[in-house]
């Protein structure tokens, strides 16, 4: 990460942590993130948006940070922003789960020492990594095409669909390894799992994006799909 992005992330963490409404986020100038420097903005790119929204997905999942940054953007860009929120929240669900199983003991051992628990968390971690990769690759595409959602339609559909499909495993395993404590209002897990359930249906659920992507792939044909995927990146 660049030094500028590191600083941006430090600011985001400091401002978001403990914020109970959007006012401090507005005051810190996050609405200017994507505004060019020449127009008095921060001049950020989608990689910056991805990084900030991953932090928002962990710290303030219920505040409209993405709406603030994107203003009146196309709904497909809101879908892209949601992928970053989801990646952040999933990373947090995984971190909380690891912390819990490395602390909680049953049958005289840490939960994390049981193979059944290890295998479940490995499955969950794979899903989280897949969504993080999807968010990062989508950001790279959006930045390569000047944030034109029509030029990144394939990647937006693929990334949002992949993120949606990870929600089931990620929330289920996180809650399962936490046991009853994770189902309480007091414990932080629901602060990311309920938003994940909500985001799955926001800005295009599975069926919405699968139809769009499936028709696009079918239109390209079997060989054409591969040629399109490789032509679009690397």
């Amino acid at each position: 990460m660049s030094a500028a992005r590191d600083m941006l992330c430090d600011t985001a963490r400091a401002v978001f942590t403990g914020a109970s409404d959007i006012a401090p986020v507005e005051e810190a100038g996050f609405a200017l993130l994507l505004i060019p420097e020449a127009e008095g903005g921060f001049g950020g790119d989608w990689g910056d948006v991805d990084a900030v929204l991953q932090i928002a997905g962990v710290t303030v999942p219920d505040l409209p940070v993405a709406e603030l940054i994107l203003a009146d953007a196309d709904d497909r860009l809101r879908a892209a922003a949601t992928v970053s929120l989801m990646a952040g929240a999933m990373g947090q669900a995984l971190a909380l789960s690891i912390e819990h199983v490395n602390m909680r003991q049953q049958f005289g051992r840490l939960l994390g020492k049981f193979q059944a628990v290890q295998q479940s968390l490995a499955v969950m971690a794979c899903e989280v990594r897949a969504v993080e990769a999807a968010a990062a690759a989508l950001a790279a595409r959006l930045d390569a095409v000047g944030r034109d959602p029509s030029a990144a339609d394939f990647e937006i559909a693929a990334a949002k669909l992949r993120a949606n499909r990870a929600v089931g495993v990620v929330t289920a395993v996180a809650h399962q390894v936490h046991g009853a404590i994770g189902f309480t209002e007091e414990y932080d897990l629901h602060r990311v799992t309920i938003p994940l359930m909500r985001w799955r249906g926001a800005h295009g659920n599975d069926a919405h994006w699968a139809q769009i992507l499936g028709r696009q792939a079918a239109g390209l044909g079997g060989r054409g799909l591969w040629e399109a995927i490789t032509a679009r990146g690397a």
Partner: protein
Amino acid sequence: MQGFALYPFDPPGDAAALRTDLRAWLAANQPAGDVVARANCWASFDANFSRALGAAGYVGMTLPTRYGGGDRHPLERYVVIEELLAAGAPVGAHWIADRQTGPLILRYGSEEQRQRYLPGIARGELYACIGLSEPGAGSDLAAVRTSARETAEGWRINGQKIWTTGAHFSHIMLALVRTEEGSERNAGLSQLLIDLDTPGITIRPIIDMAGHHDFNEVFFDDVLVPHGALVGERGQGWKQVTAELGLERSGPERYLSSHALLVALIDAAGPAPDPALATLIGELTAEIWTLRQLSMSTAAKLAAGEDPMVEASVVKELGNAFEQDMPRRVQAIIDRDWDDGDDLARLLRALLIASPSFSLRGGTREVIRGIIARGLGLR
């Protein structure tokens, strides 16, 4: 394993031109072949194709030119590999030598070994197999018992390997053996490069449930190989093998080896599929796109000299799950009988039968998940 960053996949030179050239070369040189051979194509043996591919400079690409290689960047090789797999090219003969054995000989081998083996590998003419599993050492690889004792004449090998893919057509085996008498577990192991025409070696086929002969039993009865057969450091075999498995686990073959089925499905569905079929195609497309990003990032990390053991395992786990899931989901939705003769039905049948092996070869699902769990700090 916190904070997974996507490594930029940025091969030097003109990757698009490399891709275009290879596609043109394949159009002219890839044998028509059977559609079923295109699926699981890294197990399809075709020595003529391997030789032609080597002559065209697409085998041993990353080896230095002084050993007959192309001195190309690992990510240029990655581009070539994904194109070969996506096209279903029969790369099985030289696959292991090109992917694993060549790079390992370059990294750990002696100058004599490099000169002796690498040019043949780069020509697509010298094939290799990996001698790891034994009857008592499957997932538990540290239980290897095949022994090699150093004598005045050389190493004397006794024991047995099993599930050795391609031993019947390979010229050499890179074997993990116990060189230190009385050693246990992952200590005292070394790697030996064994010419398979050495007296005392017996290779017997094991036919798999699909009726194919891919793997073998290999017996060593007082086999004498020269002192120079040792690869790398004596006693460091475990470390060397572990590094090798990173190369094995994260490549594009983990999600592209049955790509022919997706191609056939899309072609059979036509340009305007019904909603259920469009949904399936969309979900499979999202998965290969994501897997490709993960795999490319892991390859870039490997190329940068890092050791992304956990990321490589994530690619293998997700890729295996995808490739096992795909034929089941295709069968659930398309209207084909088991014995139908069109491409889609034949591919489907072949991949349903082959699919149990996907999460066994290269490390079982349970072992792979254990590696990921260790990366998470749970073991």
